[in-house]
């Protein structure tokens, strides 16, 4: 905890005592028996699976629960000594800032400067004070160049920073963040976490951060709180958390911790630096990274997608911009390709162009039949019954592929998040299959946003089935050669689990294309945590890393 934070006040930034909360008409409480404190200037990481109560807890801490959502609440919530149950979110705004997962719904003004200024104006600050605060927070978040921009011209990462700036403009004592990196590429995600750490250290802002990708932020945290079914299941240091997770909930383990667990090394590392220090202490050498040999093409069939010198221009309201700049790419049947790159690199545009949503301005693109699932599966669901979305034999065949043939009469809104995603995929597949044969190319755009590790595992199985590596979910359909599956993703750990090839885009051009182990072990940002720990060519997963460590010996 920083000294500055301690000077700013002895009262906890957040104190919860015996908190119990149930949403209106909910069969069971979303939070039960929750008690903990966040000290001034402390950085606390909130871990847990989907629907464990993390978001509700954050909303209770900023007053949205119960003031905005209603429901029944018991217990005590104090934010910087203010009673959050009695005071509304507006009154708490001076003491607490809140940043939700989707930045698009968190901006209410047309320009960046107006957005940051809004909470200060609402508070009645004088124009001179507002101008200074806007300038300072913009400098702190490195966004002064964005101040005159219209908010709807910003990228996801820029928008997230602007929303954070608006939340920080009143200099709150506590900032609450609900999966703020879920839509960011690895570079922007890491930048945001270390920006939070810097604000935490230099401004003394207490941070309560809910995240699924723990490997990204565990090293920055002072403490970890884990939740399960609305209750606290762990409250302690990051190192103790890893030891607890190993036995209690392995899905919460970070890749580096899993690597050490599998290799039988203690203590478990909270980050890459700690892991490297432990390995150095054990005398494990780090050979210089060298390129592995390219594997021969395992898919000799004709391509299902071939792009040659593909240029695509998009007009997002400002000047038209070339998003794809002469892409050359060939994808063959059965390949599992992770399409990676920074926000705005052109991943979605490439998939959307292949699916016919955009037109190219130059170059050639040939695609066999393609089924594309965009970033929001809910956009595909417009009816109240699964069977109404997918009528007839073609619909049933598509439902069988994704394992939902038993849900024909269900309301799509009653399905789980993973099931809704599979239903949307079935809608994209329906009628594009010849009998049980899949379309040549199945493309998924950022399918893991907001997913916990368990759901990602289910998605990996589905991708493997689509690519023909195993039986389909229903066990009814098997194919010698499946569809080529292309997934645009920021999640390097997920890519290491499903992909056999990685195509890395940078500013509209292909900057790397090769076997997954080679690409994800040969860089820094686009590398798995295990690859960053071991720096061994081709070693990207905990299992591979543990095997390599066992080979090398201490």
């Amino acid at each position, binding site marked *: 905890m920083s000294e500055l934070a301690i000077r700013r006040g002895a009262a906890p930034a957040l104190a919860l005592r015996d908190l119990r909360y149930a949403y209106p008409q909910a069969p069971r409480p979303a939070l039960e028996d929750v008690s903990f404190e966040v000290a001034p200037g402390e950085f606390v990481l909130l871990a847990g699976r989907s629907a464990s109560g993390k978001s509700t807890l954050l909303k209770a801490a900023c007053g949205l629960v119960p003031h905005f959502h209603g429901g029944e609440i018991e217990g005590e919530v104090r934010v910087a000594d203010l009673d959050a149950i009695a005071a509304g979110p507006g009154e708490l705004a*001076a003491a607490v800032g809140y940043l939700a997962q989707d930045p698009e*719904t968190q901006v*209410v003004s047309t*320009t960046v400067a107006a957005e940051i200024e809004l909470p200060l104006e*609402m508070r009645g600050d004088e124009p001179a004070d*507002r101008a200074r605060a806007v300038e300072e927070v913009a400098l702190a978040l490195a966004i002064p160049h964005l101040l005159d921009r219209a908010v*709807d011209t910003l990228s996801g990462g820029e928008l997230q920073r602007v929303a954070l700036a608006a939340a920080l403009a009143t200099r709150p004592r506590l900032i609450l963040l609900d999966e703020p990196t879920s839509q960011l590429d690895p570079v922007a995600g890491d930048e945001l976490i270390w920006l939070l750490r810097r604000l935490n250290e230099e401004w003394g802002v207490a941070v309560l951060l809910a995240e699924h990708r723990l490997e990204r932020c565990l090293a920055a945290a002072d403490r970890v709180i884990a939740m399960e079914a609305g209750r606290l299941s762990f409250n302690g240091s990051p190192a103790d958390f890893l030891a607890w997770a190993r036995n209690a909930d392995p899905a919460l383990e970070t890749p580096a911790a899993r690597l050490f667990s599998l290799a039988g090394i203690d203590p478990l590392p909270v980050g890459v630096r700690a892991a490297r220090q432990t390995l150095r202490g054990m005398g494990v050498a780090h050979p210089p990274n060298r390129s592995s040999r390219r594997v021969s093409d395992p898919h000799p069939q004709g391509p299902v997608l071939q792009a040659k010198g593909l240029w695509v221009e998009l007009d997002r309201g400002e000047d038209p911009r070339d998003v794809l700049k002469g892409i050359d790419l060939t994808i063959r049947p059965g390949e599992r390709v992770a399409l990676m790159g920074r926000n705005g690199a052109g991943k979605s545009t490439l998939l959307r162009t292949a699916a016919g949503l955009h037109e190219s301005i130059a170059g050639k693109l040939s695609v066999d039949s393609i089924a594309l699932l965009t970033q929001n599966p809910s956009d595909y669901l417009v009816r109240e019954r699964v069977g109404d979305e997918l009528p007839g034999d073609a619909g049933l065949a598509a439902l069988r592929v994704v394992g939902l043939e038993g849900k024909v009469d269900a309301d799509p809104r009653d399905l789980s998040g993973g099931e809704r995603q599979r239903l949307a995929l079935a809608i994209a597949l329906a*009628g594009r299959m010849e009998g049980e044969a899949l379309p040549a190319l199945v493309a998924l755009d950022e399918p893991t946003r907001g997913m916990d590790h368990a759901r990602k595992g289910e998605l990996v199985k589905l991708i493997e089935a689509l690519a023909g590596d195993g039986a389909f979910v229903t066990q009814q359909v098997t194919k010698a050669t499946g569809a080529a599956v292309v997934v645009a993703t920021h999640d390097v750990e997920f890519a290491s689990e499903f992909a056999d090839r990685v195509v890395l885009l940078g500013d509209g051009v292909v900057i790397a294309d090769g076997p997954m182990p080679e690409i994800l072990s040969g860089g820094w940002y686009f590398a798995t945590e295990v690859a960053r720990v071991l720096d061994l060519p081709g070693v990207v997963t905990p299992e591979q890393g543990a095997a390599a460590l066992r080979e090398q010996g201490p």
Partner: protein
Amino acid sequence: MKSPFAYQPRPRPLQLASPGASVAYLGAIVAVAFLYSNPLVLIAAGIAATSAGLIAGARRAVRLALKMGASLGLLIVVVNALVVDRGETVLARLGEWPLFGRVDVTLEAIVAGLSMGLRAAVVLVLGAVYSACVDPDRVLRALRPLAGRSALTASLVSRLVPVAAADAARLRDAARLRGPGAAEVGKAPLARRLLAGSLDRAVDVAATLELRGYSLDAPRPRNRRARSRYDRRFYTVAALLLVAAIVGRALGADDFQTYPAVEIGLGSATLALSALIALSGLTPLRRKPHRRASQPADGTKVPLYGGESSRRRGSGEVARV
């Protein structure tokens, strides 16, 4: 892709003027469109609205609004021609129609529809110019001390329009990506889905406004944003337009009759008023930098800023050119 109707900050007079001035100027043209039915005056108002939008840089918004206005105007003309059978000049007798009864298409009904369609198109273009050129944040700030709840509602609406447009675009894309074996999306389910999504979005945006302290009854800060140097121009033109419109009506400038026979007044008052209205569309023109002295007769350029004469100002001498 950004909606062409979304506000885009540009360093042009209409965008830089205070919201009151911009609204007064555009509102004066709207008032003219509602006060007059004479097609010549309405065409002049349309020219003013289009010029103002183009000069302010809202080319895409104006173009789209003109297309939408033309479609809407045409629809009004057709409906009026089918529904109204007044008028002396019968162009076509279409016999008995279900619901409509006996349908006679008259020249007078077409001209009356044209007048109404023109008015609708003018208002549509002005709405597009307002949406693309007037900063909603500044309008809401100006409104908030006067009517907090209305301003909150307006905040939600102004933010939700571009968000709903983006949602609609996404839903349209998803509809295009459905496999041929999936059910057709259909307009009604799509509209329901868009409405449900918009309500969810509204809740999110309202929550954000709460978190920003919108519900606080904070004191109104002093020294609000300085007025723009363009304000006087827009207020003056707005006042001039309104006075001219009222006086023009008194002098018979709206001389226009559709039934039983078409009579369009083209008197001097109508022509003068139309010219004035059309010229008012040039109000958002940016004034060229004012040169304080003529260039030497030999054609050599005298620098106004940063040249020798400017540098001499710093040494305490008065620059004379």
